[in-house]
């Protein structure tokens, strides 16, 4: 099963990379852009007997390794593939 994990910088934490990209977009002429945030997009395959099992595993992977709760939020999706 295909697991897609979205890791984003927490709202209250400065995201200098997002800010720099926003600046660059503006200087490229995209004036109407705001609130750029840069996170991570992790995809992986997990062999699981059911979407529930895959979801449970994905949650554990995120908690243990893929995201750091001090600075990041995460969300994931599971797809049959």
């Amino acid at each position: 099963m295909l697991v897609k994990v979205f890791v984003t910088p927490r709202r209250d934490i400065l995201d200098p990379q997002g800010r720099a990209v926003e600046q660059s977009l503006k200087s490229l002429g995209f004036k109407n852009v705001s609130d750029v945030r840069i996170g991570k997009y992790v995809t992986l395959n997990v062999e699981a007997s059911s979407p529930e099992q895959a979801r449970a595993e994905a949650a554990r992977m995120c908690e243990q390794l893929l995201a750091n709760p001090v600075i990041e939020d995460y969300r994931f999706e599971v797809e049959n593939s």
Partner: protein
Amino acid sequence: MSGIAVSLAGEPAVDAELARAHGLSPDEFALVQKLLGRMPTFTELGVFSVMWSEHCSYKSSRVYLKTLPSRGEMVVAEQGENAGAIDVGDGWVAVFKIESHNHPSFVEPYQGAATGVGGILRDIFTMGARPIASMDSLKFGSFEHPRTRYLLGGVVAGIGGYGNCVGVPTVAGEAMFDAAYNNNILVNAFCLGLARKGELMSARARGVGNPVLYVGSATGRDGIHGASLLASAEFDASSQSKRPTVQVGDPFTEKLLIEACLEAARSGAIVAIQDMGAAGLTSSSSEMAARGGLGIELDLDRIPLRQSGLTPYEMLLSESQERMLLVAERGREAELQAIFAKWDLHAAVVGKITDDGRWRARYRGKIVADIPVRALADEAPVYRRPAAPPVKPPERPVPLRAHPAPRAALRALLGNPNVASKRWIYRQYDSLVLSNTVVGPGSDAAVLRIKGSRRGLALKVDSNPRACALDPYLGAVSTVCEAVRNVACAGARPAGITNCLNYGNPERPEIMWQFARGIEGLRDAALAFGLPVVSGNVSFYNETEGHAIPPTPTIAVLGVMDDVSRRVTQFFKAPGDLILMVRSGAPSLAASEYEAMFGASAPGLSPIELGREKKLVDGLVVAAGSALIRSAHDVSEGGLAVAIAEACFNQELPMGAALDGVDAANPSELFGEGPSTVIITAKQGDLSSLSRIFTDAGLECRVLGGVIAEPRLRIGSALDEDVRELAGIYEGSLPGRLQGDDS
């Protein structure tokens, strides 16, 4: 014996057309058939095309490279092995080399530069030497060009990203910006390693029946044809999956490889080892076999693969990074595999050494390539291409009408990115790791101590394309002189040279002429200094749409100090010290930064008398060794006035200078570049002993003035500037141009 080899189902038929698409000329294709005694298979055609490419075979440069002096008392390993080595005393040998990664860095600056660093590191530790320092020589287009900032940012981040992550300090380098490089940047990477004498590894296969081991990252489709057929549209278009892919570096795996290979080297179980660089598996296996006069057989079913479905052709031509090939002592495979496993690396047995002098590859029960080893290595074509000076004289800047005021000129020069501080670059590099860096970036040459010894090593890389464009011979000579002088200014005795020769398309006679003249200059200068050229690299085809870069031989010099505590930096040390100028001839504005900024005003380069250059360098080494020198700075871009200002920019405490002994009305005295000029400071009491060293050698040695506590730079009545203000211009130039990219 022609051997038997078969093409596989689905592979294109080999014919003259396909050979041409592979970059082989009709004559070369005929030679392939003659050497094989038959038509090559598709796989074999690919193998020949990379091994006979300019990049791998040095077919246009080989006859010239042979004329360089490669021997010397202190030389331990010479050209032919992966890098040169020099005995630096106390049982240590230094291994060093420089290499280009120009085109990959232009396509993808971060990864191109990063993999350039990775490649040169492997050339060093494959010899059993631990990499201890890196340098980088960079050429970018002008800041007006829209891609320059992007390329600069990416290249510097890539060099840092890789070098910082493998734990090898980047201690020196150079950077230049000129419109001549707008469409062809240069990224040359240097690495220095240290090994115990007698413990150097070889790349010469020995022992029929010995197993061949593959270590490191698995093989993917990276960079197939990176070395040879970069531009072959018809061929590329035929298959999406065959498009050359950009190589991505994995410095973490490289760090594991360094540790594991050095540990494996100490086990004594390795017979020969070579990194998989350009033409990866093919070149490493065939070159090791060729050096040993033996044959080799590869079992392609055992090659670790990153993705399934790679064909033999792709496996043999892949340039995936962080891979090594080694020949082990038979029966000791398991011992080696255990060492690599300790470092979480897999070592797979993928073949064996044979006695029949053939390079053979098997795949799924079939032989897909069976070629005489000599045909790939020694019998590759060698060309003496036509060389002729250009019909048109070299382009010169527009003539200068009136000289700017010295004050304005000095300020403009200090803010010129070619002269200004390169801190924005080198502060992105870890220059401290390994605890050897006693002089880091910012002074003329970097100096490293050797732990457990009193000795030290100095290193610097230089190039001088402006002078090379005017006169490719004199330019090359002056480049060697500058690098040698920089090392001597640090107090070290120059000991060896490595070079990276960046030129345009060698099939054009005027480029070949530039190259030939450059080699002559390099040779004459190396001979005059008594220095061996221990390694090098040639990068041709640096041109876009018929516009070649200026000839750019990049020269790196390694120097040795018997007592590292006698090292010298470029910065003024204390008020009251005398400022002296030593020089070998009169400076000229030709090819100077001044001329590039304000316009041409000099007819041509000053001649260089190599005998005097050598005396100047010898004098510096003797004077530093006798502790007579407090600071020494080479006059280069921007001339004397800039050099004095730079010497004032002491990070701990800015100093001032008051000079009466300079002809300030003469712009070439203040801003001229040219034959050797060095600014030295000394204690008053040491003046006579110091100046005797140089005057006895017949060199001009003059007191210009003295160091003062007040941070002002005074030159006669022409200049009276606040040093902090000048430092602000000098330090602010690059960050200012890159605003938004950095804080």
